[in-house]
C-alpha cells in the first residue's frame, strides 16, 4: 500500500516535470500571476521582473536587430501552454534579440515566453493607443500547430451519420 503510493507519486512527478518545456529554474524565478494591467498601471514597479506569459500571436514585426511579437495573452495550463479563450487578459509584446521568421511565427500560433518586463510600448490599435507591456525574451516556446492532415483517422468514424445509432448496427463494420 505504502509502496504503491510512493510509486504513484513518482509517476505523477515524472509527468509533471516532463510536461513543462521550461527549466525548473526559470519557472521558479518567474511570475505567472502578474497581469497585463498591473504592468500597464505601474511599469516602473515591475521593470526587471521575470514573467512566464503566453498567448496567441497577433502580429510579427521584424526590425533591424530584433523581432517583436504582439501577443494576445491567455492563461497557461499545467504544461505552461496558453489556453485559448474569448476573454483574453490583454496584449503584450515579446522582444527577441534576433530574427524570428514570420512565416513560422505566424498569426494565430501559440507561444509561451519566459522573460523580463522592460516597460511599456505604445502602439495604435483601431483608434486608441494601446500600452503593450514589453517582455524581453529569455526563452520562447512556440507550440506545435494542430495539423489537420496529421489527425489520425481513428478520431472520427466514417460510418457516423445523421441516422440514430440503432439504425447503424447492420451497416456498421464493427458492430457496436
Amino acid at each position: 500500500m505504502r509502496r504503491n503510493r510512493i510509486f504513484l507519486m513518482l509517476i505523477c512527478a515524472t509527468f509533471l516535470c516532463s510536461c513543462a518545456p521550461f527549466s525548473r529554474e526559470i519557472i521558479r524565478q518567474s511570475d505567472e500571476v502578474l497581469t497585463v494591467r498591473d504592468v500597464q498601471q505601474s511599469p516602473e514597479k515591475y521593470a526587471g521582473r521575470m514573467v512566464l506569459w503566453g498567448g496567441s500571436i497577433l502580429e510579427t514585426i521584424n526590425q533591424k536587430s530584433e523581432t517583436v511579437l504582439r501577443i494576445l495573452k491567455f492563461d497557461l495550463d499545467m504544461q505552461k501552454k496558453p489556453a485559448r479563450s474569448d476573454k483574453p487578459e490583454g496584449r503584450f509584446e515579446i522582444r527577441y534579440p534576433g530574427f524570428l521568421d514570420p512565416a513560422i511565427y505566424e498569426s494565430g500560433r501559440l507561444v509561451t515566453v519566459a522573460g523580463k518586463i522592460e516597460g511599456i510600448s505604445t502602439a495604435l490599435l483601431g483608434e486608441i493607443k494601446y500600452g503593450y507591456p514589453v517582455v524581453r525574451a529569455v526563452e520562447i516556446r512556440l507550440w506545435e500547430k494542430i495539423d489537420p492532415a496529421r489527425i489520425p483517422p481513428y478520431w472520427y468514424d466514417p460510418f457516423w451519420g445523421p441516422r440514430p445509432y440503432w439504425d447503424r448496427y447492420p451497416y456498421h463494420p464493427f458492430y457496436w
Partner: protein
Amino acid sequence: MQRISAAVLAFILLAGCASVISENVLREADQSVSFRDVLRDPERYRGRIVVLGGSIIKSIPKKNETWIEVLQQPLGGRLKPKNTDISEGRFIIKYRNYLDPGVYRQGRRITAAGEVAGREVLPLGEMQYSYPVLINRETHLWEEEPAYSSPQFMFGIGIGI
C-alpha cells in the same frame, strides 16, 4: 417513469435549441423589422431593438467604446448567422467597453440584439457606405468552425525530455 423521461427529453430538446440571446431581450426585440428595412432608413427605426448577425469585417477600438463592422447574413437555427454569400449589406455594432480585435476578428460570426441608433457614413474603397448602427444590448460570438472535424476526445500519454 414515462413522465420523467418525457421531461428529460423535452429538456434536452429545449436546451439544444436554446437561443443565444436571452429571452428578456428577445421579448423586447421587434421581429417584424428586417435588416433591409433598417438599412434603408435607420432613422425610422431608431430606438427599436432588433436582432442581427453576420460575420465580422473589422473591429475598431475607440476611446471608451468599440465599433464592430459586420457583414449581415441571414440568421438560422439558434439565431446563428448562416454561412452564405447572401447578404443584404453591412452594419455597425457599438459597444461601450473595450473588445479586443484579436478576439472579435475578421471572419468570426456574431449575433447581436441591439437598439437601432441611426447611421454612420464611412469610406469603403472609393465610395461612402452608410452603415446602420446598433447599440449593443446582448451579443453572442460564435466559435470558429475548423475546416476539418476536430477531435472531441483526446487522450495521450507521453514523456518528454
